[in-house]
């Protein structure tokens, strides 16, 4: 499969990753709404996998130049924080299942699109480091997208949206992932010197998103110990799979 044109590999796997969100609607085929505790688990699962992906990107990037990776990470952290502030989505709760106001609706979709944009940078940068590594990161983010979409679908179906529409919107919110993956890959292809910066940027942004959105959210939805356990196991699985593949 990796005999394909490299850009096509990026397109294919970032699209798979974006489309994986459709499975996030799965639980709603069987029940109308999930208990808030389970939404917390989904958030913690997504957080742990994202932290694992950040670790993998960081360790992959450091040999290329620790200074550039760290500088890129600071940029990524700053940019992720800025995008939250600028879009008015910092301090946004992702569990207001009863809030059906129009503002909350677009904010939730915006936050999800922002997340997938930064995940797209991660996929593109990882692909530029090496295609097998990129495929690994894309698949890790694909699985991460499932619990993330479950949280989104919980909010959307709470707004009386049909399951099919909720699943469709969850995938649509990930389109930025495909675009940014190809964009990042093309940039690094044109200027290979920016690769450690791009890997650092993705690392920093993912860590910031975990710390600003996913974790604080989940602590309100389930017990601290449960959240910590779910997140650390998810993180461990990503790290283990990476070393098993490498």
């Amino acid at each position, binding site marked *: 499969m990796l005999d394909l044109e490299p850009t096509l590999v990026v397109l294919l796997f970032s699209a798979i990753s974006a489309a994986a969100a459709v499975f996030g609607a799965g639980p709603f085929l069987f029940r109308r709404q999930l208990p808030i505790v389970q939404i917390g688990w989904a958030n913690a699962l997504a957080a742990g996998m994202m932290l694992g992906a950040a*670790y993998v990107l*960081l*360790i992959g990037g*450091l040999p290329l130049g*620790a*200074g550039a990776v*760290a500088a890129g*990470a*600071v940029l990524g*952290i700053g940019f992720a*924080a800025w995008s*939250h*502030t600028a879009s008015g989505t*910092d*301090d946004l709760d992702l569990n207001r299942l009863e809030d059906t106001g129009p503002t909350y609706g677009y904010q939730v979709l915006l936050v999800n699109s922002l997340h997938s944009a930064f995940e797209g940078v991660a996929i593109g940068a990882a692909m530029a480091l090496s295609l097998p590594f990129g495929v690994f990161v894309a698949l890790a983010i694909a699985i991460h997208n499932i619990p993330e979409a479950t949280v989104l679908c919980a909010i959307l179906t709470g707004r009386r949206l049909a399951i099919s529409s909720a699943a469709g919107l969850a995938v649509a919110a990930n389109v930025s992932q495909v675009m940014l993956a190809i964009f990042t890959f093309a940039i690094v292809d044109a200027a290979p010197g920016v690769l450690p910066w791009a890997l650092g940027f993705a*690392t*920093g942004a993912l*860590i*910031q998103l975990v*710390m*600003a*959105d996913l*974790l*604080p959210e989940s*602590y309100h939805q389930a017990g*601290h*110990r449960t*959240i*910590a*356990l779910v*997140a*650390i196991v998810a*993180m*461990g699985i990503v*790290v*283990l799979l990476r*070393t*098993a593949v490498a």
Partner: protein
Amino acid sequence: MTHPVLTVFLYGLVTALATGLGALPFAFLRTVSPRVVASANAIAGGLMLGASFGLVAEGTEYGAWQTLAGALLGVLFIIGTQRLLGDREVAFGDVRGSDARQMALIVIVMTIHSFAEGVAVGVSFGGGATLALVITLAIAVHNIPEGLAITAVLRPRGVSVAKCAGWSIFSSLPQPLMAVPAFLFVETFQKALPYGLGFAAGAMVFMVLEELLPEAYDRARRPVVALQVSLTLVAMVLFQQYL
């Protein structure tokens, strides 16, 4: 020329004393508002997460499964310790209740983590490393942020700077103690090293996720806490890369 075992021990002791330096920045902290506690937790969390990234990277080079198995044991160890501390009235100096429990926990976690680091020091000496002084210096400097992490938790809860430095040094004492046997029996300890590194990483990450971060989020705004954790994490990783 002194005996090599004594040399390893003395070098290890120097690295332990360096941990005390981590308490110094807090000498200038006067007021302790909830925001300060949140920041201190966030910084300690970032330092410990960054340190764990380094430990896992080193451990997986010896063996990925062993590192992860060690991490699992580390998590179980924290849960066990919490159960033990939760059952009884814990006092840490004049402090009681959940604050005292957390203070005791960070000292225990960081001390346990020094056991693994001590083994790493001993193994690297025994591995025929000629740059012993450089390694010692590196580990000594590397210990300073660990003292910072301990002080960040103890100081806002009313422990004096001198005592913070004392607890920081205490937490690093296992380093010289473990370095010596690891140096003498490199082959045996090398096998145990990934488990130890994983154990330390698992214990630290779990403590950050379960104790430090939720408390920080309760006392300050999310974006601020997130920025502090993320930036400290990156700084710690960079710091370890160059030392």
